[in-house]
């Protein structure tokens, strides 16, 4: 099976004296649903930022679909949902405007949406169940619906790798379960590889095929059911 993501001995630190990640290595076959959990400050988000090319490793290599990091993203192969705090939730945008932003690429930087773009936007909105709210302002929707809108934006470019950073933060328990079910369905229907970061992986442990526990490096890599008892609350993982 082709590899979606390959990390080989990757190390990174925002401060040279305090590495966030050291010698992290793993491979993700295309089509897999991987949950990435771990304590706050353990390096989960940094791991994602390395994979999408927002930061560069100080040593080691990161490849996405066999290409240097960044190249696959520029070709539209990567859909990325950053943490909620990074999003323009308060902007006066409708769901349709948010999702349309997912169709802007380096090659299609200028001019209006094409009919293909509009079809893709409508299809993405329908997939996340927001067709009835398509022209509603984002600010009038619930936290869970807002996250659905940004997930629709992430899949609007028809990516092969979907990367989500703490998508359930700030939404209630019911909405968390609904988001997990939505991601499972998108994974199944779009045949997309999913990397899902959460400091509490409970919401997706039933849909993820594989769990990576990250704390300065990869401390556990296997099916969620095989996670040792002492790490069952990975948000407070300790050796």
């Amino acid at each position, binding site marked *: 099976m082709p590899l979606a993501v390959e990390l080989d001995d990757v190390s990174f630190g925002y401060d040279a004296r305090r590495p966030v990640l050291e010698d992290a290595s793993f491979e993700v076959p295309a089509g897999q649903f991987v949950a990435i959990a771990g304590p706050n400050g353990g390096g989960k988000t940094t791991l994602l930022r390395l994979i999408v090319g*927002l930061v560069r490793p100080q040593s080691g290599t990161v490849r996405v679909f066999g290409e240097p990091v960044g190249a696959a993203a520029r070709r539209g192969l990567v859909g990325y949902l950053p943490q909620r705090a990074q999003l323009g939730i308060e902007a*006066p945008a409708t769901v349709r405007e948010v999702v349309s*932003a997912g169709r802007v690429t380096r090659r299609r*930087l200028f*001019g*209006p*949406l094409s009919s293909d773009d509009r079809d893709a936007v409508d299809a993405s909105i329908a997939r996340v169940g927001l067709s009835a709210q398509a022209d509603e*302002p984002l600010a009038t929707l619930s936290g869970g619906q807002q996250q659905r809108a940004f997930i629709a934006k992430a899949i609007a470019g028809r990516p092969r790798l979907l990367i989500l950073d703490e998508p359930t933060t700030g939404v209630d328990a019911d909405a968390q379960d609904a988001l997990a079910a939505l991601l499972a369905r998108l994974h199944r229907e779009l045949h997309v590889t999913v990397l899902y970061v959460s400091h509490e992986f409970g919401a997706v442990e039933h849909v993820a095929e594989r769990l990576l526990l990250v704390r300065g490096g990869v401390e556990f890599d296997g099916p969620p059911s095989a996670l040792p008892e002492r790490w069952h609350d990975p948000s407070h993982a300790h050796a």
Partner: protein
Amino acid sequence: MLDHEFMRLAFGAGAVVGVLAPAVGFFLVQRRMSLIGDGIGHVAFAGVALGYLLGIAPVATALVASVAGAIAVEWLRANRRTAGDQALALLFYTGIAAGVVFVSSAGALNANLFSFLFGSILTVTRGGLLLVAVVGGAGIVLIAVLYRALVAVALDEEGARVSGLPVGTLNVVVAGLAGVTIALSMRIVGILLIAALMVLPVTAAGRLARSVASTFVLSMAIGLGSVFVGLTLSYYADLAPGGAIVLVAAGAYVAAAASTRLAFRA
């Protein structure tokens, strides 16, 4: 009122400024950089003063200084060399200090300088109107062409970066346009008040509109209306045009906020 050529020139330049300032300001407000216009205004003051000192057109030196200052702030912010508010503070104080030094060296503390600070309807020349129309029109066209990309960055800067959009270049374009807008607008609205015309129409439109597109269009309409009403008040009541224009824009915000509150209660 329009029998006077100076009023026709002021209305012509004001129309361009009234549309351009909120169009650029929209993207600054969405990125929580509403105050950058004030910082650039202080640098524009240094540019005007430098023009007096060197004996060349103050608008030209202000244009160069404003664009350079705006790009410098964006560079400081993007490269995390300093926090956003500290970068602005650096720009504010350096600009005003340089302006004071240049003005005192040139001995130019006079009424003409005050027309740059607070605006004057008597100072727009035919050549000035042509400059505002050509450069301002080009700015509006540039925003229209880049609109979708600029909105994508405003909604999700990291997502746009991952998609390979030239986010740094787009941010520099917005900063540069902010500099151009301030240099073009200072004769009408005044250096000290132009930033308000970039922000108040956008915040007023944000209270009424329900989408990015409608907020964008409505903010330009409010900007245009504020300039026209403000210039008219300025003519009949002999007021400084900058103050009149900005007070009308502030009134538009109060009216928008009141109408949404009334609609909420109804």
